[in-house]
């Protein structure tokens, strides 16, 4: 389907969000149990959470980066993490697939569960975690290989035995890139435009067969038109995947997300969760003065 009127699409999704948020809230009040131990922001609730964070704190060396974050992420929704630079939102994202461990001298306390499994338990393999929790980075980082090999790499190293051509095509279609590149899959991934590169990175992540995609400011290096295409894609992907997106751009958070978490660094430099709720509510009727200040552009 050709998406000519992006404005309408964005509006429609926002309406959907509102209804779904209400529905989830209703369901929550009856089902009870699955809330995090300490409720960070009353009024947010949904069914079975995918991730649950309890008292998550994180340090780079002696520098605290996150303090006591407790929150849950819903399945098949887009959750946006917003906040000024240095508020710990990217760090939080990287805690969800253990990418943070690659930096020497980091320390983590608290708990992160994925489908109720503690992913930092001693017998859990971070490599297995990462192949189920995909990630897309701030700057498009396709491998300096062909488009085909970019998509096939993850599946290959994970021992995929099916029809590779079919997987590549399916992943590229899911990432809304196939029509643009189908004539020459042997072309280098680096020869694509920035927006295409980022969609290639999304296709690459999808080919591994994750159920979550973490996106770390995926549009910050892209022009407005490429950004809209990615946002469109996010709304499509959320039918099948859970998406958690870090963004600097508040309009983007408002356009694509179902839930929004606002973070802010304290005086010690550690990021804290300030407010978390359905996007519509956070943007129109925030509980916290600091959230309102940030959203209305009074600081940050």
């Amino acid at each position: 389907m050709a998406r000519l009127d992006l404005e309408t699409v964005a509006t429609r999704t926002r309406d959907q969000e509102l209804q779904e948020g209400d529905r989830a809230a209703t369901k929550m009040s009856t089902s009870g149990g699955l809330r995090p131990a300490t409720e960070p922001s009353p009024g947010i609730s949904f069914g079975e959470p995918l991730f649950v964070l309890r008292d998550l704190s994180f340090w780079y060396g002696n520098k605290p980066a996150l303090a006591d974050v407790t929150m849950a992420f819903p399945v098949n929704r887009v959750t946006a993490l917003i906040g000024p630079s240095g508020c710990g939102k990217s760090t939080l994202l990287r805690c969800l697939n253990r990418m943070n461990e690659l930096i020497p001298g980091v320390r983590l306390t608290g708990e992160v569960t994925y489908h109720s499994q503690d992913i930092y338990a001693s017998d859990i393999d971070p490599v297995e975690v990462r192949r189920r929790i995909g990630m897309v980075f701030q700057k498009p980082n396709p491998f300096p290989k062909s488009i085909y090999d970019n998509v096939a790499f993850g599946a290959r190293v994970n021992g995929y035995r099916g029809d590779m051509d079919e997987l590549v095509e399916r992943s590229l279609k899911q990432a809304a890139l196939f029509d643009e590149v189908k004539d020459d899959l042997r072309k280098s991934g680096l020869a694509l435009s920035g927006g295409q590169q980022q969609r290639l990175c999304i296709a690459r992540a999808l080919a591994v067969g994750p159920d979550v995609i973490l996106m770390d400011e995926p549009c910050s290096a892209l022009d407005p038109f490429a950004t809209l295409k990615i946002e469109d894609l996010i709304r499509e992907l959320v039918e099948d995947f859970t998406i958690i997106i870090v963004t600097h751009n508040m309009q983007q958070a408002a356009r694509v997300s179902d839930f929004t978490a606002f973070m802010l660094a304290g005086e010690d430099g550690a990021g804290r969760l300030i407010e978390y709720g359905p996007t519509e509510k956070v943007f129109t009727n925030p509980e916290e003065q600091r959230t309102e200040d940030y959203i209305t552009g009074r600081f940050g």
Partner: protein
Amino acid sequence: MAAPVIILRATGRVARRQALSRGSRWVLLAASLVGVGVLAYLAYDTIDTGASRLTWDFLTSYPSRFAERAGLRSSIIGTVWVLGATIVLALPVAIGTAIWIEEFAPKNPLLTVVKLNLANLAGVPSIIYGILGLAVFVRFASLGPSILAGALTLAAMIIPMTVIAAQEAIRQVPQSLRDGSLALGATHWQTVRHHVLPQALPGIMTGIILAVSRAAGETAALIMLGAFTFIAWDNTNLFEDFTTVPIQIYNWTVRPRQQGFQVNASAAIIVLMAAVLTLNLIAAVIRERFRHE
């Protein structure tokens, strides 16, 4: 009538200082050209002396007591053998060491020791490597002054500089590439094998080619091993005695001047320099070609 004119032209002391500064440019330029000038003159002198001797016969004849019959055949073959064996021995060890240091080594005092040790080994004079080879490979391991002993010695000599070049190349690989691969559930080794190494390969190749060109010109270490025998056959295996082009140059240089061996030395220098410059050129081309990607 005369409006006050502000003169910005230098006068007096300032003018002298400026003149001195302008003059210094030419003095300094002249000094910078000294090295280039020496190189150019040496090249001219060698070609002038040796070019006439540089015939096909010269390249394909065995050494001889008579200058006009002597040639480089056995030393060229010996050089190719010993360098080939050196590359086979040094390359995997050097790349393995660099990968371990840059990618896998725990950041602890042992790593610091390994790094410091490499830096110091790179500064050890080549003749000391020759003595190591003499005591360990030639005598203790009873390899004699063979191609294998020579290659082991040269490998020990070039591993440190190759490791340092390979480390540099691996460090240049952007972290985003590693992140991209790891986030797809590739293991650290798969990431290194499929992304870091291919990306660092041009830099590693440049390093190894420069190191091999150093080994190609090495003389002292091989003489210490005892690789100074008269070879009038073609080498066929690693356990034979050998000679190399630089050893042959040394040999001809120290002969009594009247016998005409100096012309042979010049001709052999043309051959050696052509080989070394070709290696350096290849390294430079690889570096330039991959820098822009």
